[in-house]
């Protein structure tokens, strides 16, 4: 009983010249929830991926229940009772939820019997843990939150003894997060072991028993959660004091910049996603759009940005009707008018992973005369632009020729934000600005958004993090099922009321 469930001794890992893990050693006991935190790129995912056999360590030993094990591939880890919920979904989009869950533990060669069996077991599991997902739904159609639940179910179904969760809460609603933590506590109480990687210090304090802090590949602290504070943890992570609260002056709203009148948007299958939304966004004000993901926020911002056609209503920018949208033309027109857009998913829309940072720095502005004279691009102007963008947004490493996909998530986000904000847009749409970004970077990004507001831009902020919305916005709008449920100045916002609106309970006019 005294043997730790999992012990790492001197784990070392290089990616080329990048020393991602430097002799990492720590232990996790049975019946313990361990928090693993650290900045982006600190090496958290890497070390856990090695425990799971997804990556191979250069050096070091892994002990499971006191015995040294040789984990070469995930199958070995699974055999030792280790389960992992990965930071990035490892799901097959074209499969149903059920198929995704049984993949790899199908049992017999023929599927039919096994599927029926699994269906029963899963029904019980979801009931026990309150994880409700339609087992027959296609994964491609699920919201990110539901996908995350599928990943968790996958791990639960395998009855892992040691469960590793890599940022599972990044896309969950507060309620779902609370629920997940209940499950984790249940697990701990059953004598299992949980390792939780997260950037949210609140969560660390709420659910873990012990915290390991990593910085630049090495373990820098091993703490008892009971003796920790958020500020203290943050300082351990970054190596300097961090201000967790955004300091911003009171907004001085100007005139209406964007007005939506009875806006409705259908998706490509004709299903209504946004219903009859009327709204105006004012200069010098941050409007936060809250809601459980999948309730029309994405479609709303895509429609405003011109990427999705509207089925009804009008969008006006400074009084001018922007038309239907849904074409490259409409996107271009908006960009030329001074509408900027930080898309929710940086790797789907915001960046082209294969292009250099330099090229990504003019994505969407390729027609801008400052970057090309009629037809020929101006390489030196573009390079200078990228350099200054990297400097002012603290992009690391500041290497313009590095491929966009080779930057860490937080730095990718800074490139996109920089590109969109640096031109002093009159209106900025910004989706999930800090998803998966570490607290140091969050602090920076928040500051820049407020600064842009103070220059007089209208800003529409969409975030799945209610904390972020409340902290950053001057005004909060809540959407549920495509419609606006509530609209309230941030100073008067109360978390409980907003939670009700998000659940679609009442419609209260503000």
């Amino acid at each position, binding site marked *: 009983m005294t043997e730790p469930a999992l012990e790492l001794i001197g784990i070392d890992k290089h990616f080329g010249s990048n020393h991602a893990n430097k002799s990492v050693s720590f232990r996790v006991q049975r019946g313990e929830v361990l928090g693993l935190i650290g900045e982006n790129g600190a090496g958290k995912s890497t070390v856990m991926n090695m425990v799971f056999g997804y990556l191979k360590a250069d050096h070091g030993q892994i002990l499971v229940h006191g015995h040294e094990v040789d984990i070469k591939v995930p*199958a070995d880890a699974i055999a030792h009772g280790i389960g992992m919920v990965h930071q990035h979904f490892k799901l097959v989009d074209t499969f149903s939820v059920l198929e*995704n869950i049984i993949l790899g533990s199908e049992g017999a060669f023929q599927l039919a019997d096994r599927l029926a069996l699994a269906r029963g077991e899963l029904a019980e599991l979801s009931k026990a843990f309150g994880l409700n997902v339609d087992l027959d739904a296609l994964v491609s159609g699920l919201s990110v939150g539901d996908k995350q639940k599928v990943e968790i179910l996958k791990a639960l179904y395998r009855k892992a003894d040691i469960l590793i969760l890599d940022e599972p809460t990044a896309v969950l609603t507060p309620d779902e997060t609370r629920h997940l933590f209940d499950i984790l506590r249940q697990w701990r109480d059953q004598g299992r072991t949980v390792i939780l990687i997260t950037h949210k210090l609140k969560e660390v304090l709420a659910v873990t028993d012990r915290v390991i802090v990593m910085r630049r590949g090495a373990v820098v602290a091993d703490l008892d959660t009971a003796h920790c504070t958020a500020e203290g943890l943050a300082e351990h992570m970054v190596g300097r004091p961090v201000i967790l609260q955004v300091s911003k002056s009171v907004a001085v709203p100007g005139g209406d910049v964007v007005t939506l009148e009875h806006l409705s948007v259908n998706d490509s299958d004709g299903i209504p996603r946004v219903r009859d939304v009327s709204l105006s966004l004012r200069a010098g004000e941050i409007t936060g759009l809250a809601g459980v993901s999948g309730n029309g926020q994405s479609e709303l911002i895509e429609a405003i940005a011109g990427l999705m056609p509207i089925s009804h209503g009008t969008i006006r920018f400074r009084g001018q009707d922007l038309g239907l949208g849904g074409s490259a033309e409409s996107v271009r027109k908006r960009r030329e008018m001074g509408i900027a857009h930080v898309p929710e998913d940086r790797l789907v829309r915001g960046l082209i992973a294969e292009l250099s940072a330099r090229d990504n720095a003019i994505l969407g502005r390729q027609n801008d005369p400052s970057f090309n004279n009629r037809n020929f691009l101006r390489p030196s102007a573009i390079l200078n632009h990228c350099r200054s963008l990297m400097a002012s947004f603290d992009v690391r490493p500041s290497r313009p020729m590095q491929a966009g996909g080779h930057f860490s998530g937080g730095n990718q986000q800074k490139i996109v934000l920089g590109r969109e904000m640096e031109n002093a847009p009159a209106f900025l749409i910004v989706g999930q600005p800090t998803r998966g970004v570490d607290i140091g970077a969050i602090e920076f990004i928040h500051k820049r958004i407020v600064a842009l507001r103070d220059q007089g831009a209208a800003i529409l902020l969409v975030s799945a993090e209610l904390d972020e919305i409340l902290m950053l916005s001057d005004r909060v709008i809540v959407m549920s099922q495509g419609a606006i449920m509530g609209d309230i100045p941030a100073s008067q916002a109360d978390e409980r009321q907003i939670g009700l609106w998000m659940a679609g309970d009442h419609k209260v006019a503000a």
Partner: protein
Amino acid sequence: MDDFITVSLALAAGSLRLAIPLMLGALGGLFSERAGIVDVGIEGKMLISAFASAAVAHATNSPWAGLAAGLGAGIVFALIHGVGAIAFRGNQVVSGMALNILAAGLTVTIAAALYSQGGRTPQLPDAARFRGTSFAAADGTSQLDPALRALFELVAGHNILVYLSLVLVPALVWLVHKTRFGLRLRAVGENPEAVDTAGIQVATLRYQASIISGLLCGLAGTYIAIAQSASFVPNMTAGKGYLALAALIFGKWRIWPTFFACLLFAFADAAQSRLQGLNIPGIGAIPVQFIQALPYVLTLVLLAGLVGRAIPPKASGVPYVKER
């Protein structure tokens, strides 16, 4: 009317005969691509198998030995492609093209060296081939009503490989959709990471798929050389591998639709030869070339009008690299 029935039945039989190699090649490609390996090399795999089966059938005087050789050659080529794509993470399109060109050169070179017949293999005796029953030839049936004879021809006149292939289609559907292997196969072509983290070896799975692809293309080549024909002739696949690839895409990487796409291509081809010499009153004879172009025009029109966007398996063409 009787004549119309006869012609239709003969047309159906012809379509079936022409569809078999296309279908086998396309299904071979399907297994490869569903596993995430782009397969431009169907043509090459078919061609090398055609040669191997004809050469071995000639040497042993046994069609079954020929079949074994054909399948073996298909597998060898598929594994060359597999090793390039899986172990060495090479460009899969290049690899496929390389197979096609290599097969074209290698077969003729070896055949010319062995038989000195300009790259052909010697004519196979009947005993060394897979033969169907020709009801047109059978003595007892020559009195038969032509329509009846055509019906016999359609239902029972084919060689064993045709029936084998037809049984294969539902069997493969079962394999892909109802078994563990199929589930994993479909998964690895969409998201190999999901397969890997589920504790399944991506490489092993992909090699297995490659082997199946080699087997099916090998069967296609064998059929062409020692069932449909009686010898290997240089470049005898004559672009069928590319057509099979087209059918696979047409069928959106699904078995039944692909099967029907092959039947459609084959039907258009069979009909084309029967329409030659057609006279349209008032216009006159249609130039042969226009009629020969008909299947292709038909495909284009169908593609543009009916079949929606084809979305390939997401991971196909991308080597699986864990550490990026």
